């Protein structure tokens, strides 16, 4: 089963193509999308098991020897990310059944989702820098379709901005790849790492490192480059927003973590110092935004920015605690952001508004929604038995080991702000006097509740089962800590 690591990419791709043929048959679309994702989930779980047993899995397409063909590499880090991606997408698809509306489902909605998953999984798995660019474009073009699908005025307006920002950042990505190619003369990531080690990271490589930070920083929304995110993410409907919030920025974060642990490891003072300063500023900017709004969507969107900052702060420490904390927190954040967007989607569905000041007293009418929201909010803030705790603990521990006390104080203080921002939603929406709910005829929201409950329960299990997950996380952070494992796996022949 040497092709195993391609299955999580190819299966959604094939199903996306098949779905193109049944535009009008919504039930078939729904079933096939779910079936495809379940098959991909099975493949990716088996992939995690295989990577755990046999170490890093690699395959070079077309049987060309390693630096000459395109390598696909699945280490524990990317295998776990692929699995989480597929879980979240599967739940988003199920959530979409009741919340998207048939008008959108008629126009290749599920195909676009599956194409996007293809791109995300490909970007997580590839071992070739230009191939990563191509997979970025696959996921970006699918996301353009998803963000504009429906054609409301607001969506049109925001998607123009979103597409322009991404066109510019893709152009910068190509420029960076061109510079890197002219310096090292190769595109294979393991080979690039070897070549950079041979020439000992001269100044031009540091320039390229900063360029990569800019490119992936635009995708992953770090401090001065996050300006596009709040507007664009507020435009599409909730399931698409959940998909974007849980997956897209994390691809940028993954790319930063991969390049900064594999390529640019010889002069970490400047590059990783810069990454650390920017991540702290990202956290602060996100905190300001999360407290500033009375809009449900904006509060959670700014929480994405905070989480990106926390993950990159952990990654910038370059020690064992910091990196494994970053891996823990990255997976936690994908799950919990999906869950939070699902939950606020239901609150908006029930109350008919996303303005906090116009709602109240939902605890009396929708108690189960309230309790699940509370669990998710505590999980996001990192209350100990829940999922956000261990990642942040390790990140702070790593920062203390690396003597970055101020940074870790900011991270800890940001937890309070995060908690305050999501509890404010709880207080405004669930406590107080019940407001008159809009009396339009509505379907029950049970169809949305099921995937939400599954996701919240998964995040709780993620927190409770930390001990059981630890060996997987250790494998993931070991590859990041020791690039030689990755390089040997790719260039072994």
């Amino acid at each position, binding site marked *: 089963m040497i092709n195993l690591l391609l299955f999580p990419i190819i299966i959604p791709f094939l199903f996306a193509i098949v779905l193109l043929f049944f535009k009008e048959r919504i039930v078939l679309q729904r079933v096939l999308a779910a079936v495809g994702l379940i098959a991909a989930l099975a493949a990716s779980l088996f992939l995690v098991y295989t990577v755990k047993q046999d170490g890093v899995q690699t395959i070079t397409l077309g049987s060309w020897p390693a630096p000459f063909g395109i390598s696909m590499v699945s280490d524990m880090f990317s295998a776990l990310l692929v699995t989480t991606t597929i879980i979240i997408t599967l739940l988003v698809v199920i959530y979409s059944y009741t919340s998207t509306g048939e008008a959108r489902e008629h126009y290749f909605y599920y195909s676009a989702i599956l194409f996007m998953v293809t791109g995300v999984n490909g970007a997580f798995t590839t071992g070739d820098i230009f191939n990563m660019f191509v997979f970025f474009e696959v996921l970006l073009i699918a996301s*353009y379709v998803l963000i504009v699908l429906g054609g409301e005025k607001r969506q049109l307006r925001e998607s123009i901005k979103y597409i322009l920002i991404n066109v510019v950042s893709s152009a910068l990505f190509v420029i960076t790849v061109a510079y890197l190619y002219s310096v090292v003369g190769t595109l294979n990531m393991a080979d690039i790492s070897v070549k950079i080690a041979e020439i000992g990271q001269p100044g031009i490589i540091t320039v390229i490192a900063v360029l990569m930070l800019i490119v992936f920083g635009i995708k992953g929304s770090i401090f001065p480059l996050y300006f596009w995110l709040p507007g664009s993410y507020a435009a599409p409907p909730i399931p698409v927003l959940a998909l974007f919030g849980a997956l897209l920025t994390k691809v940028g974060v993954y790319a930063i973590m991969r390049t900064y642990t594999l390529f640019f490891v010889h002069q970490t003072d400047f590059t990783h110092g810069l990454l650390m300063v920017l991540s702290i500023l990202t956290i602060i900017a996100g905190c300001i935004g999360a407290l500033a709004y009375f809009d449900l969507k904006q509060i959670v969107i700014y929480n994405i920015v905070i989480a990106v900052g926390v993950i990159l702060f952990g990654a910038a420490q370059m020690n064992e605690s910091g990196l494994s904390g970053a891996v823990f927190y990255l997976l936690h954040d994908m799950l919990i952001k999906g869950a939070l967007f699902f939950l606020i989607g239901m609150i908006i569905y029930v109350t008919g508004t996303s303005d906090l000041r116009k709602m109240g007293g939902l605890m009396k009418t929708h108690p189960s929604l309230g309790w699940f929201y509370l669990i998710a909010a505590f999980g996001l803030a990192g209350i100990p038995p829940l999922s956000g705790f261990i990642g942040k603990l390790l990140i702070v521990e790593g920062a203390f080991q690396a003597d970055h006390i101020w940074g870790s104080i900011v991270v800890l203080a940001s937890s309070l702000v995060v908690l305050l921002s999501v509890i404010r939603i709880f207080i405004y929406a669930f406590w107080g006097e019940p407001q008159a709910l809009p009396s339009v005829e509505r379907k029950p929201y049970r169809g949305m509740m099921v995937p939400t409950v599954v996701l919240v329960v998964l995040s709780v299990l993620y927190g409770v089962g930390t001990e059981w997950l630890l060996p997987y996380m250790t494998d993931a952070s070991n590859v990041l800590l020791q690039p030689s494992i990755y390089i040997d796996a790719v260039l072994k022949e």
Partner: protein
Amino acid sequence: METLITLLVGVLVTIAVYLLLSKNMIRVILGTAILSHAIHLLILTMGGLKKGGVPLIQGESGSYTDALPQALILTAIVISFAVTAFLLVLAYRTYKETGSDNLDALRGVNDE
């Protein structure tokens, strides 16, 4: 030769940035097109502009030019072509919907 092309790329990027910062939607899209021209030229230059045969194996030419950047450019061209087509249709649709091609008229965010 590389210096000359690099200067040209610099000029193209300057024009592209100027156009991207303008208010007219079509000018902005033209800016993205010029930006993609610039980066394609840049890939070609960064691969080296040494003299050599076209990379087609026929007969015994001494050396060939680097074939890899050409494949990269071909990929980047079709991607930017697709994105530009999408962007043009989106601009058309936005014009139909809002009746304006001025990007300032597309603000309308009611922040508190």
